């Protein structure tokens, strides 16, 4: 797509893109290049000297049991967040699409968690589930469940999943609702006349037609779980207990900032960049496919 009518100026267009390009160069390309550079370097214990070690940092990472465990935690965490986030919001959106009365009120009451910072979402849920004073902990105790996410790794993972899903539901809900409202009523009506009940209509017509939205949300939720949940984890479990909730991003931060392992942390950054690129490509292939519908 190109404009037919354009303006002519020898210097103006450069001046107009200059601010954006300057910031991009200084704060994106320069640090990204440095991350790649550091990932091939090994620093001594005092950070005074460094030497080129090739792929040694990467090799060390893939031999490191903690790093491989972090991959597994990230995989489990993001699948759980995406699955529950998408499932619950699809249910709510389907119901909201059905009701005539109060639809706007439901929508308003369901979208506000989008405005909550991930770190605050973490704090809220950590308080509800606090081992000694949490109100949910108290209720769970009534059911005979001993809840302590500070020492139990599965419960810690569950806590960060709940907080992350809670925050993401509103986003998924809005996209599903928009998707549902764009499905032609005539299709649903035709199926109803042929005698298909609501459940049958949902699974044979609505759900397949929503698949582009669902796939899009799958990618977005994966990206969310990979990166944006940093705040949730840092405000609650900080990767613990015993790295049970240490996702890849948190490990980059932990190794780089707290453990001051520049080479190892940069190598992890480079691997993460490849993951982002893969996810972005997946997202764009989906966009291309949608055009053909």
């Amino acid at each position, binding site marked *: 797509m190109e404009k037919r009518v354009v303006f002519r100026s020898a210097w103006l267009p450069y001046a107009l893109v200059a601010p954006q390009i300057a910031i991009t160069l200084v704060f994106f390309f320069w640090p990204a290049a440095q991350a790649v550079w550091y990932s091939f370097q090994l620093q001594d214990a005092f950070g005074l000297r460094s030497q080129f070690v090739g792929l040694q940092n990467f090799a060390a990472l893939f031999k490191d049991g903690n790093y491989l465990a972090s991959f597994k935690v990230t995989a489990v965490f993001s699948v759980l967040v995406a699955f529950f986030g998408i499932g619950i919001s699809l249910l709510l959106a389907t119901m909201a699409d059905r009701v005539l009365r109060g639809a706007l009120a439901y929508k308003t009451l369901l979208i506000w968690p989008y405005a909550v910072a*991930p770190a605050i979402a973490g704090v809220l849920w950590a308080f509800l589930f606090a081992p000694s004073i949490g109100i949910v902990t108290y209720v769970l105790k009534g059911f005979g469940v001993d809840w302590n996410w500070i020492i139990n790794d599965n419960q810690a993972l569950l806590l960060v999943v709940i907080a992350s899903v809670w925050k993401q539901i509103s986003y998924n809900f809005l996209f599903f609702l928009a998707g549902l409202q764009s499905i032609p009523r005539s299709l649903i009506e035709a199926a109803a006349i042929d005698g298909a009940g609501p459940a049958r209509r949902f699974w044979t017509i609505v759900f397949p037609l929503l698949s582009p939205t669902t796939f899009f949300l799958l990618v977005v939720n994966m990206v969310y779980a990979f990166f944006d949940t940093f705040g949730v984890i840092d405000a609650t479990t900080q990767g613990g207990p015993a790295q049970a909730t240490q996702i890849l991003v948190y490990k980059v931060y932990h190794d780089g900032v707290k453990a001051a392992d520049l080479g190892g942390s940069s190598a992890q*950054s480079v691997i993460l960049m490849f993951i982002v690129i893969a996810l972005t490509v997946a997202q764009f292939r989906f966009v291309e496919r949608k055009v053909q519908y």
Partner: protein
Amino acid sequence: MVENRPWLTFLSHTVLILGVLAVAFPLYVTFVASTHSLQDIMQVPMPLLPGDQLVANYAQVLGAGTTTGSKAAVSRMLVNSLVMALAIPLGKIAISIIASFAIVYFRFRLRMFFFWMIFVTLMLPVEVRIIPTFKVIADLGMLNTYAGLTVPLIASATATFLFRQFFMTVPDELAEAARVDGAGPMRFFWDVLMPLSKTTMAALFVIQFIYGWNQYLWPLLITTDESMYTTVIGIKRMIVGSDAANEWNLIMATAILAMLPPAVVVVLMQKWFVKGLVETEK
């Protein structure tokens, strides 16, 4: 609705009400906790109706922070958050709109190169280049400054795309008419494109306001001085130990203060918010 099924309508409302309650429950408990004294909160179970310490708790955090954790006043943090939440969207809109104006309405060398350069930044979120970006900021002497908090976050591929997409839909006749009438490019930009872009700008503003207000990792890295903490960071600094050692009533009051502005923006500007959300992700 295709057919009338009363029981299904009833079920829909039930599911939605349960959903709304589940979503609102943490907020309600947070609010209740922010209105009690610490002793009341420490009871198990904590009270589930609002108490009478609302004014005392909020006055305490706004003026002096917590007593055991961070002692920075939350009013100062709210100002810092507001600076971030305003500077980021305004900066993003300003630099993106002129960049996409240049890319759409001019032919110049390296045009596509610049376009791809901006595009690639989509693939480099702050989280994957934490340490080197921190070093760049430190080398530039921008730690603990508003410039350091905001400038690195205002480059945005999404905003540039959004404006580009919108400019593509503006009829060519408008630019042609402007040229015939002897208007230069900047005149056309100010008098024609800017007024047409208002809705796009409003939508972007809402989304980016929330983005700026809720930033976490970035301020966590570059603010070490209490006077530069944002509200979200402040809450994190108030949590100092195991769960019984924290002043939860004050932390929860701060959490309410931190959630209020973006939530109000989302609810009041719902139309722009939904538009912005759907369009920035296209």
